[in-house]
């Protein structure tokens, strides 16, 4: 199993039956492959659809049905089209049960930075700030480190996406939950031991005697 697949499979288990979920572009999008198709989970694409499906068959693409990355997509039976005010009303109003987003940094306060690297990369926040502020649960799905450098840090050095504390971080090494007391190590990836996780994390982790392995 690749690191990416570990993350996607583990995040898929966090999604609750019968709820609305927003998956960010990139790694989070792939989470959809691993959910139980009978669980009644609906995916929102913030450009205006509740009930986004998978990629269309070749030759069946519709230029008026794309995802938030501008890529052709489909609608599941029972989908609904909404405009941008309604789409973000759903997000801001807490009607999206979970958003899954990539991250550049997460810190001990549970703050997320994922939208700008000053002077280097300024793509704009798109819908990320609304999602991190408004979704009921914010799940960050990312590689534990970038080029060997920890992404889970004592204090974010990059500009924050929101001052709200996120719900959960899922990486290829671990599941970590920000709490009032700090970052709690909840689970470790298969064949990964706690020492390895601690070594790859510059933030302080709260570690219980027994840290269970992820179910995938």
């Amino acid at each position, binding site marked *: 199993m690749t690191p990416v697949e570990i993350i996607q499979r583990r995040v898929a288990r966090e999604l609750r039956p019968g709820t609305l979920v927003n998956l960010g572009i990139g790694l989070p999008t792939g989470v959809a492959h691993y959910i139980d198709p009978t669980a009644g989970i609906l995916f929102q*694409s*913030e*450009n*205006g*659809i509740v009930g986004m499906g998978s990629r269309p068959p070749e030759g069946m693409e*519709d*230029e*008026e*049905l*794309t*995802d*938030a*990355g*501008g890529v052709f*997509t489909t*609608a599941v039976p029972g989908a609904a*089209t*909404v*405009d*941008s*005010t309604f*789409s*973000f*009303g759903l*997000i*801001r109003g807490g009607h999206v049960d979970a958003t899954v987003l990539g991250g550049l940094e997460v810190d001990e306060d549970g703050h997320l930075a994922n939208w*700008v690297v000053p002077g280097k990369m*300024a*793509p*704009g*926040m*798109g*819908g*990320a*700030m*609304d999602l991190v*502020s*408004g979704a009921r649960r914010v799940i960050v799905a990312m590689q534990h480190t970038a080029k060997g450098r920890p992404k889970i840090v004592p204090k974010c050095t990059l*500009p*924050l*996406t*929101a*001052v*709200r504390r996120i719900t959960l971080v899922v990486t290829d090494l671990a599941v970590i939950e920000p709490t009032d007391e700090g970052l709690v190590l909840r689970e470790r990836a298969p064949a990964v031991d706690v020492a390895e996780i601690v070594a790859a994390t510059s933030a302080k982790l709260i570690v219980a005697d027994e840290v269970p392995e992820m179910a995938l």
Partner: protein
Amino acid sequence: MKPAITPEQAADMIPNGAVVMIGGFMGVGSPHRIIDALARSGRKDLTIIGNDAGRPNYGIGRLVHEGVARKIVASHIGLNPELQKHMFEGSIEVELTPQGTLAERIRAAGFGLGGVLTKTALGTIAADGQKVIEIDGEEWLYAPPLRADFALLHADRADFNGNLVYQLTATNFNPVMATAAATVICEPREIVPVGVISPDHVNTPGVLVDYLTRREAPDDPR
């Protein structure tokens, strides 16, 4: 009955320096024929308000490419490196605003509200210099209404009176922009007689629309 004009006539109405909203999301649901006419018009110093900057020379990116835009107000420009280069060089001003806040600011202008009170961006650098309003001990970021001189929209279908219907994710910012500009010009994929569209299926009432662009190839099919 609304006037049916050409994309060139639409572009001709827009003066240098105008503030122009353009519907669409990465070019999906954008009025590409009007955009193209505007890109070729030699117009200067436009402020363009839209969700994003499309891709290089595509969607709103077409206006960036042709040097028509002086300022872009958008939520995301990540897929347009050409604009990012202009932004870092300072040759085009870019105002980035969260997508939901952008939509709501336009709605506030169109629907006569004094602005938006949101948690989004509160406490981040994206809120630097912006007003924070405290209500019953709780802080909210204030975002002002956003209006334009022109709105350039796409629709799937219009009737002769300008009632508009959108389709799937080509809807996006088009309906809200229809409320917030002094002059609203729509480029529909097709135009049908009044009465063909059920009142319950109209997304934007024609009272909000000033002009429709005419069919591309108005030859009689016989």
